[in-house]
């Protein structure tokens, strides 16, 4: 039932502002794809082009292999949740949600304002519609609001109405523009699983704009990471996180952000601002960037042998994030701020045993390390052995 969506070389500019440049994307039928990217990178614009509200400057959008560029939005068989909700202000919540169904199921005559009620079959159809509206409204937890008007709703409630309006139609393709941004964590979890369930149940294709990594990570089959009007990486959540194709992707994904350290390529040996570093690469570029995920760092009272990278630091600040702590450190040599993440329990025990008082090392052990060339592209790490056998290298910054 779900539609395949394929976007080819899509380009779009608003006057002088180039918003989308040569976007290509293939979304498999029934899959859930998130569009993730910084604010203003063109996510909403891409959705609007797909829906047919904006005409692209170049490129094509195809659904199920056929170009839909010539079709009006109505004929594209897709539903959209707008970032700005776009509810019908003069209709009640119930009317807002039932409108798409009425348009789909009732004949023009049955839709007539007063007369329609007496059209044959209208009552039964309307009863069905009302039932469906109730169902989707109760999923979105707005069933008690069906008689209100949008102006009488809270922000989150409006967003849920917008979501319900899209969900009720069950077309082959959903476009959703930050549909959960105004919901609280609990509701969000509910809605997320509801959306995923819907995706599976209807076998519908979903293109989902979000700025929430967790959301993108947990819900999507694949993530398209957009920046500056381009798609930098289109891959599974795991791959996006653990094998970022670009330094910007690495930086964008992961919270707190990956630690980036400038490095030099000294004939295959990576020279970074660390005390000890035992990473090699096969690429030729001179200036590199070394990325270390916060959870790849461990804070140690003394250097250990297993580490491929060790930086002497001072601990500035500990931040509690529920079960985790963030350790904000400053590299002693360069003054660079680095962050490490640890379990709160582990941290507590280290503090209790007085291990975090003297001089400290941030160490990494091979996993969670990434190398990027000057243009930002990821390059492979040839080996990352324990540094024991190597003499300490001079740190550069």
């Amino acid at each position: 039932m779900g539609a395949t969506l394929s976007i080819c070389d899509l380009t779009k500019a608003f006057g002088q502002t180039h918003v989308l440049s040569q976007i290509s994307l293939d979304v498999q039928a029934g899959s859930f794809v998130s569009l993730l990217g910084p604010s203003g990178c063109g996510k909403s614009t891409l959705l609007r082009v797909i829906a047919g509200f904006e005409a692209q400057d170049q490129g094509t959008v195809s659904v199920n292999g056929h170009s839909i560029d010539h079709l009006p939005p109505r004929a594209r068989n897709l539903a959209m949740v707008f970032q700005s909700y776009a509810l019908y202000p003069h209709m009640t919540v119930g009317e807002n949600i039932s409108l798409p169904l009425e348009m789909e199921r009732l004949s023009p005559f049955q839709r007539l304002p007063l007369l329609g009620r007496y059209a044959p079959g209208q009552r039964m159809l309307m009863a069905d519609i009302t039932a469906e509206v109730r169902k989707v409204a109760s999923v979105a937890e707005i069933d008690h609001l069906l008689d209100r008007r949008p102006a009488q709703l809270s922000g989150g409630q409006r967003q849920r109405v917008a979501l319900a309006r899209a969900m009720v139609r069950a077309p082959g393709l959903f476009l959703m523009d930050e549909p959960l941004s105004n919901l609280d964590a609990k509701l969000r979890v509910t809605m997320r699983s509801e959306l995923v369930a819907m995706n599976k149940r209807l076998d519908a294709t979903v293109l989902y704009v979000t700025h929430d990594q967790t959301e993108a990570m947990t819900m999507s089959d694949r993530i398209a990471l957009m920046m500056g009007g381009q798609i930098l990486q289109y891959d599974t959540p795991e791959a996006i996180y653990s094998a970022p194709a670009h330094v910007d992707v690495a930086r964008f994904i992961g919270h707190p952000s990956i630690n980036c350290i400038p490095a030099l390529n000294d004939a295959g040996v990576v020279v970074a601002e660390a005390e000890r570093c035992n990473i090699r690469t096969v690429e030729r570029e001179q200036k590199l960037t070394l990325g270390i995920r916060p959870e790849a760092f461990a804070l140690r009272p003394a250097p250990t042998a297993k580490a491929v990278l060790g930086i002497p630091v001072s601990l500035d600040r500990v931040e509690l994030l529920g079960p985790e702590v963030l350790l904000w450190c400053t590299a002693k040599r360069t003054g660079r701020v680095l962050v490490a993440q640890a379990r709160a329990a582990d941290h507590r025990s280290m503090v209790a045993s007085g291990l975090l008082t003297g001089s400290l090392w941030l160490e990494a052990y091979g996993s969670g390390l990434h190398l990027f060339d000057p243009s930002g592209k990821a390059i492979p790490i040839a080996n990352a052995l324990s540094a024991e056998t190597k003499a300490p290298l001079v740190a550069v910054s």
Partner: protein
Amino acid sequence: MTAISQDTMGRYGAMAARARSEQMAFWCIGPAVFLIVVTTVVPFATVLAFSFTDYQLGDAGLNWVGLANFSKALGDPQVRQAVTNTFLFAGMVVPTTVVLALFFALLVNSRTVTRRFYELVFFLPITATMPVMSLVWSFILHDRIGPIARLLQYFELPAIGFFSDPDFALGSIALIAIWQHTCFCFIIFLAGLTTIPKEMYEAAALDGADRGWEKFRRITWPQLAPTTLVAALLTTIRTFQVFELVVVLTSGGPAGRSQVILYKTYLEAFSYLRIGYGSALTLIFVAMVCAISLVQFRIARRQQAA
């Protein structure tokens, strides 16, 4: 697929969207355009045709006279006076009307309990049956026995011949025209004010722009600009089309000082039955008003865009 064909595909999509939009627009404007053509454009084209002839109402035939009617109009001192008067009149009425209407609309809009009362009151003049109301006004502004004259007498001020004094006649008619048009603009403004989102005022209230002038200048006025444009445009056009008032109150007198262009046109066409000449005058009039309106419209649009 090659780059070129994709490129053309994309353009094709854009073109299809455009064509769609055009088609929808066609159905939307179709009936209106058809009716405009039938009820206004075609009849006006006849007027245009007549303006090159010497047709007299009731005549069976007519002669082509080329531009004679127009050259006659340009040389006609009465026409010149009528045009001057019309501009003077519009100069008095349009700004006053728009400003007054805006002012009262803003005041009324901020009322809550008494709002309906004021709306009704300010709306009343639009219901005026002009043949009656001009009679009433001729009494109110009667230079001897009218209430205003009595007031002047009471304060021992010199009497004013509102309609009989050549220096006052046009102004007095303007006073009534303002009365007549203010409610018109008032309603337009009131409808326009309903569309300004409440939260705009809330944000402004915090920013300190929630009172009087600043609120007006920063929020209300810019948001109301399109409405103001419509109001000013319509008032201008209606003001230029003044003539019933003149007929009833002064017949263009005293000494032609309240003669206006449309009354002159009406006289020529329907009193003197010179349809040809009257048509030429109409044409000149319409060209003039069109030019002014379009310029007004352009300026307002540009300001909106800037």
